[in-house]
């Protein structure tokens, strides 16, 4: 009962903080009289969003489509690579430095290469968001697989379990929470990748709209683009979070503590 009210209170508080943030922003802008070329007011941004929605909508859909494609490809590739690396100690040790090397390359730097290979447009954007979302997935899946308790593995090996049996029955379920944790990171990174590529080389997408708008000094429109990105990002994060909770409820035992039975 107390936990419920605590939860409600927390929700109320975060809503209040959110509203307060925009209110403060609005009032601050009005009081200081700062030009909307520097920092537009939330009300201006909302107005732009409302009036230019028909124009913005296809771009939002484009960005969402690109992000989800890149994210999907990245996650699938990441799972496969993670499984290969995580199922063998040798592969883990050998491949890890390479992976760290790849991941430390600033992803902005790969966009021009993709543009040279595939031309400007959707493909480099998809590839960028894919490349950027692979790494967290690989690391998490590999770590999850490598974390199998040795004792449990012994129990199964003595039963005559093949490596495949152990991977399927223990390794993969054990890696699932790690995978889902990485999905939440990967989806936000995928947005970064898409928008990055769209600002550099594309004629569609929110990133493209923002770069053009900033060229025209249409700062409220730039902010409107930001808001759209934020909303999409939060929505997809929530979806990943929801799936995570459904799939790996067993890994989040805190709430279950009260139902512990004593022997």
């Amino acid at each position, binding site marked *: 009962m107390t936990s419920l009210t605590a939860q409600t209170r927390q929700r109320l508080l975060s809503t209040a903080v959110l509203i307060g943030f925009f209110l403060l922003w609005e009032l601050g802008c009005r009081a200081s009289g700062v030009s909307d070329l520097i920092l537009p007011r939330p009300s201006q941004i909302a107005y732009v969003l409302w009036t230019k929605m028909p124009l913005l909508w296809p771009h939002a859909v484009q960005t969402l489509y690109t992000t989800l494609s890149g994210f999907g490809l990245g996650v699938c590739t990441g799972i496969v690579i993670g499984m290969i690396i995580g199922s063998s100690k040798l592969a883990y040790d050998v491949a890890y430095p390479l992976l760290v090397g790849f991941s430390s390359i600033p992803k902005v730097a790969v966009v021009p290469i993709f543009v040279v290979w595939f031309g400007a447009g959707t493909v480099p954007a998809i590839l960028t968001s894919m490349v950027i979302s692979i790494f967290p997935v690989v690391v998490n899946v590999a770590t999850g697989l490598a974390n199998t*308790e040795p*004792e*449990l593995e*012994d*129990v*199964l*090996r*003595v*039963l*005559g*379990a093949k490596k495949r*049996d152990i991977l399927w*029955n*223990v390794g993969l*379920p*054990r890696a*699932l929470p790690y995978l889902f944790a990485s999905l939440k990171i990967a989806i936000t990174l995928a947005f970064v990748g898409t928008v990055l590529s769209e600002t550099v080389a594309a004629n569609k997408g929110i990133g493209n709209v923002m770069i053009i708008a900033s060229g025209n000094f249409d700062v409220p429109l730039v902010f409107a683009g930001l808001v759209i990105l934020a909303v999409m990002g939060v929505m997809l994060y929530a979806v990943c979070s929801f799936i995570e909770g459904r799939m*790996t409820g*067993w*890994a989040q*035992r805190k709430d*279950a503590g009260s*139902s*512990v*039975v*004593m*022997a």
Partner: protein
Amino acid sequence: MADPFIELSNVTLQYGGGTLALAQTDLRILQGDFVALVGPSGCGKSTILKLVAGLLKPSSGGVVVAKREVAMAGSGASADAVGATAKVRIGLAFQNPTMLPWLTIRENVMIPLKIVEPFRRDWAKKKKGEYAERADALLAQVGLKGFGDKRPWQLSGGMLQRASLCRALVHEPQLLLLDEPFGALDQFTREELWDIMQTLWMANKPTVLLVTHDLRESAYLANRICVMSSRPGRILETREVPFARPRMLEMSYGPEFTTLVQQLRMRIAHARTSAPTDAPDALALTPLKANA
């Protein structure tokens, strides 16, 4: 004398780091026997268990289980040896219950049926019926009736250990290897589980090898007790345990039982002080890989 079910002949095991865990160990266990290995910590008790299971390969000497060479020094990788032992159905339980948190207790207990032949081939057909009933029956026997649908984190340590015993027994193993299975439990639960263990053993008479540091436990459960020296481990003495079965808790407070435990205690104390001739400092520096 009948052929032994398990035979270790002149087995030496040196771990990669150079730690000598076992030196020239001989051990013969008959089918259906209940043998306990006791000894000071780090003496290689668990190592023997792992050798018998085929999880480790001896540096020299041979390990034979059910007339089948599990591992001989210099033979193939121990991974193959595990495959070879799998012909004998083995049940394994550790101090740690290692239940899979995403499965229910019943599903956890049923894991061996999913992996071991001949149960494996009927898994899809029988997992809802016969196998589930078998798991439930075992759970009821250890006092976990009605807990089959619970998740591991909803049970206490003692209950999990009971379930772990069920998992070790569900595929009717011919050989049961127990590595301090009651070590982490409180005295009451432990004694209760001794009785359960005894009942289960008397029902099917699998061959049992129990590693423990609890001398009362060894005297209560085993037919024979092997006392080991400290590292490098050797079997110093084998004691027959004469008490009739089923043994009762009252018996364990009787004079004969107490005397036996006391003698074992003194033997181990002696084994520790008359420890190897190596300088103790050198011993302290070697990594403690033998986790017995």
